Structures are given as structure tokens and as C-alpha cells.
């Protein structure tokens, strides 16, 4: 029927078309989100408090909650993931137990976020009586984020050439000292990149939070310094609806008069945040790498 050359041309044409369609879909998706959302984003929208019913509500509290939850959960997950990354890359050999550890990490990373959220709801919110709070949310996000961070730390450590380890050991350093003083500094760009990308991922997470950090955002008073007061922004035990949860809530409950505007604006903010996290990851990675290697 067709000879090989004609077939080649046809196939190439099809590939070009399909790839073109993808580019169009993806590009119009980004442009649509930014185009329809950015006009609602202004200083007032970013700082004023939200309202469940009336028009003209902002997302100030939600934005603060998102960042605060991000910081708290990174504070918990960084030490855990760095140490288990060190263990897996430097100490773990190839044994049955190590295999079990690896499989558990893989299973944890593929669990649906709603299942992780329900686990957090059951354990942190109900059994540990933390209620819908920043703490429950941050712990749940930690569960959700740990496998990815651990794997990225392990990969960055493994990418450090073996000669660096040998050099450290031959100077009389113990293995632990070699890891702390030689391996970690040279793996730092990769580790930081992984952390920033992980941060971007949990910034937009909603399914794991609706039953842990809660779906309400009581107004905050930034002049309140009593850490136990529910209006204190830093209180760990207050419920905290994040930006991503807010988008879901205004759309599924349909009580807010200008739900479309609020969610378009919030979506644009989320996308820009993801963009910033991506660029930041690249930039910091390069910068730290240059500083450590002394290269220009």
C-alpha cells in the first residue's frame, strides 16, 4: 500500500498534529487561568478577609494560612526526610528490610491524597483530639510530602561521586562526619531544589486538608500576641482554610455571590505561586551549586 517513506511522512504529520494540540491545550489553559483571574487580583483581594455570602470578599486569611501551613509542615518534614535520605543512601545496603523500607516509601507516595487526608482526620483530628487545626493539617501534609522529599534527598546524595566519600574517609573522618561535612554540602543544590518543588506541591494541596485543617477561616488579628487566642495568626490549634481549599469550597457550596471571581483570582494566585516555586527551585539550585563549587 504505502511505502516506508510515505508512512514515515504520515506518522510524522500525526505526531506533529498531536503535539501541536497538546501545546494548544496547555498554553490556553495557562493563559485562561491567568487571563481570567489576574484582573481580580489586587491589593484588596490579597489582604481583605473572606465572607461566605456577600460580594467583594478577599482571600487574605487563606493566603496567610497557606504559607503558615507550608512553613510548619516543612519544619516537621525536612529533618525526617533528610535523615531518612541519609540512611537510605549511605547506610542501607541491600537487604530484605531495606527493600521493605523502599516499598513502603513507594506505597506512601502513590496513596491518593484523600486517603492520607482521611487518615489524618481519624488519627490527628479525632484520636489525638487536635481538632480541625493547623497542627493536624501540617502533620497530614508531612505524611503526604515525606516520601517525595526522602526520595529527592536520597537521589541527590547518591549523585555525589564515590570519590568524595573515599576522600573524606581517607582523611580519617567517620562515615557520619563525611556525610555531614562532605556529602551534604555537595548535594545541597539537589536537596534544596527537591524541597522547593515539594513545597510547591503542598501549597496547592486541598484534598488532604479539607478534613484536617478544616474548611473555615476565622478572621485573624495580626496585633493579637496571645498565642492561645483563636484570632492569633500563629496559634497552631485554630482551624485554617487554605487558598486551595477555599477554591474548592466556594465552588462546591455555591453560597458566595461572586464565587467565579474569587476562584478565578485564587487560581491565578496558585498558578503564579507554582511558577515562582519552580523558578526558585532552579535559581537556588544553580546559585548554591556555584557558591559551593567556586565556579562562575
Amino acid at each position, binding site marked *: 500500500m504505502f511505502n516506508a517513506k510515505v*508512512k514515515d511522512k504520515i506518522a510524522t504529520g500525526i505526531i506533529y498534529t498531536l503535539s501541536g494540540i*497538546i501545546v494548544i491545550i496547555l498554553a490556553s489553559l*495557562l493563559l*485562561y487561568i491567568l487571563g481570567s483571574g489576574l484582573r481580580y487580583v489586587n491589593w484588596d483581594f490579597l489582604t481583605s478577609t473572606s465572607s461566605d455570602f456577600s460580594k467583594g470578599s478577599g482571600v487574605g486569611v487563606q493566603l496567610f494560612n497557606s504559607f503558615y501551613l507550608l512553613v510548619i509542615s516543612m519544619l516537621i518534614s525536612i529533618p525526617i526526610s533528610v535523615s531518612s535520605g*541519609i*540512611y537510605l543512601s549511605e547506610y542501607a545496603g541491600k537487604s530484605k528490610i531495606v527493600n521493605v523500607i523502599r516499598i513502603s516509601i513507594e*506505597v506512601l507516595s502513590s496513596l*491518593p491524597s484523600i486517603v492520607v487526608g482521611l487518615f489524618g482526620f481519624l488519627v490527628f483530628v479525632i484520636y489525638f483530639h487536635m481538632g480541625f487545626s493547623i497542627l493536624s493539617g501540617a502533620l497530614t501534609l508531612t505524611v503526604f510530602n515525606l516520601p517525595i522529599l526522602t526520595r529527592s534527598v536520597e537521589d541527590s546524595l547518591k549523585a555525589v561521586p564515590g570519590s568524595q566519600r573515599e576522600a573524606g574517609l581517607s582523611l580519617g573522618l567517620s*562515615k557520619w562526619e563525611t556525610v555531614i561535612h562532605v556529602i551534604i554540602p555537595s548535594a545541597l543544590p539537589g536537596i534544596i531544589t527537591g524541597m522547593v518543588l515539594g513545597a510547591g506541591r503542598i501549597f496547592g494541596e486541598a484534598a488532604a486538608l479539607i478534613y484536617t485543617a478544616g474548611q473555615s477561616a476565622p478572621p485573624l488579628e495580626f496585633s493579637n500576641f496571645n498565642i492561645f487566642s483563636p484570632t492569633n495568626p500563629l496559634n497552631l490549634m485554630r482551624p485554617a482554610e487554605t487558598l486551595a481549599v477555599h477554591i474548592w469550597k466556594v465552588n462546591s457550596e455555591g453560597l458566595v455571590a461572586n464565587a467565579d471571581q474569587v476562584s478565578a483570582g485564587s487560581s491565578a494566585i496558585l498558578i503564579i505561586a507554582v511558577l515562582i516555586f519552580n523558578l526558585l527551585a532552579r535559581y537556588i539550585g544553580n546559585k548554591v551549586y556555584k557558591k559551593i563549587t567556586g565556579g562562575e
Partner: protein
Amino acid sequence: MKDTIRESLTQRSKSAKLETRGKIISLSFTAVIVILVISIIGFVAAKGSLIFIKDGVNPFDFLTHTTWKPNTLDANGHPIIGAAPMIVGSFVVTLFAAIIATPFAIAAAVYMTEISSKWGKKILQPVIELLVGIPSVVYGFIGLTVVVPFVKDVAGGSGLGVLSGAFVLFVMILPTITSMTVDALKAVPRNYREASLALGATRWQTTSKVVLRAATPGILTAIIFGMSRAFGEALAVQMVIGNAMLMPTSLVSPSSTLTSVLTMNMGNSVQGSTSNNALWSLALILLLMSLIFNTVTRAIAKRGEF
């Protein structure tokens, strides 16, 4: 008099103590992760099996019946709980999304690795990386404002339903599958291509008969990974599927998935009640499916190593 030399020789050095401490710390934090995974599986399994043990629901009925009325008792005194509509809904949206996404993902990956690596690397790669990171609620919101009205115009009905859900999931898993397929194609050794081209094969013959075939396990892993993501996605689907606990009769009839039912109802039910236990058994199905996807991926990866 204290013998300092003797002391330093017989006692463990500071460095050795530090070494042990470091090893113990790093091992115990790793153990935390393993304990977490075991407790997640344990808790969800314990909660999810209550409906069968305590309320006496027949697991077979649970999987095949289509009526979900946890507060009504049937003739035998057991609550009427049939999860078939949700299970079917979940599988249908996942399969549709994967079927639409796969050709696009493979085409884009072939374009990026085999045809124009420079242009692909410069534009397609960063865009796809960025899209992997877009939060799922944003996809849901776009689905609600763009896809649902479009489906409503074209196919009729309210626009909410399996078709909209599948389309939103398609866009959501497309970047994931594409970037994993690119990795799979890149892992095919260069000399495979050179050998094929040297035999006089065209680019398409090389791609279809050598590269894609050698990369099949990797591509399958990518597709299954995308499906497991689609199966477990909650909010984006919940926003566009219509949330009616009915068997999907057409592509545009409002229906529901396991995740959407969990999202909608978990907050409205009292812990320990029959309807709550029933919801946890849906979570158990989700967990089991995720374990199955995981096992399949691992089996494929084991067979396809170069």
C-alpha cells in the same frame, strides 16, 4: 594519676560515638516512615472492614448492588449498601482519561526525544513540568467553568457527568504521563537507534519498531501511574461529576466516584455510625486499588530493566 593515653585507647572515640548516634537517628526517622505506612493501611483496613464485620453487609453485595441507603435495613436486617455506581464511576473516568491521554502523551514524547529535541526541551519540557505542579482544584475550577458548559452545549444534559470528569482528568494526567514517557524513551540506548537507521530504516520505522518497543515497559509504567493518579483524584472530579449516587447511564448523566462520595459525605456523618462505616469501606477500596496499581508498576519495572 590518670592515665590519659590508656583512656584514649580503650574508650570509644568521640567520633565513633557520633557515628553510632548518627546512624541511630537516621534509622529511627526512616522507621517513622515505615510505621506511618503500616498504620495508614492498618487504620483504614480496620475502619473499612467494620461494615462487613459489625453490620453484616455481604462483601459481594457491597461490590455489585447499586443502591446506597446506609440508614435503611433490608429483609435480613442488614443496611442496604451497594457501592457499584461509585466503583463503576471511578473506573470509567479513569479508563477514559487514560485512553485519551495515552496517544497524545506518546506523540509528544516522541516529538521531544526523536524529532526535535532542541525545541522540545526549550518550550515543551518546562511547560509540562509546570503543569505537573498545577493544583488539582485549579483543574477542577477550569473544568467547571470551561469543560462543563462545553459538554452541555455539545452533548446536552447538565454537562456534569462522566465525560466532563474524564476530560478534566485527561488534562490533569497528560503532563504526568508525558514526562514519564519522555524518561522512558530517553533511557533507550542510542546505539539501538543508530543500528536501526544504519539498516536503512526510516525514522518512523526506527521509532515504532525499535524505540517504542524497547521502551514499552517504561511507557506502561507511565500510563498506570497516570491511571492511579486519576483514580485517586478527589476534588477536581468531585467538582464536575454531578455527585449523584446513581449508576452512570450515559456519558452526561450525573454520577459519582469513590473519591467524590468520600469528599462530599465524610464531614456529614457521625463517626462510628453505619453510614460512616460504609464510607470508610469506600476508602478501603481506594487504598487497595492504589496498592494494586503499585504492585503492577513494580512488576512491569522489574521485567523491563535494560
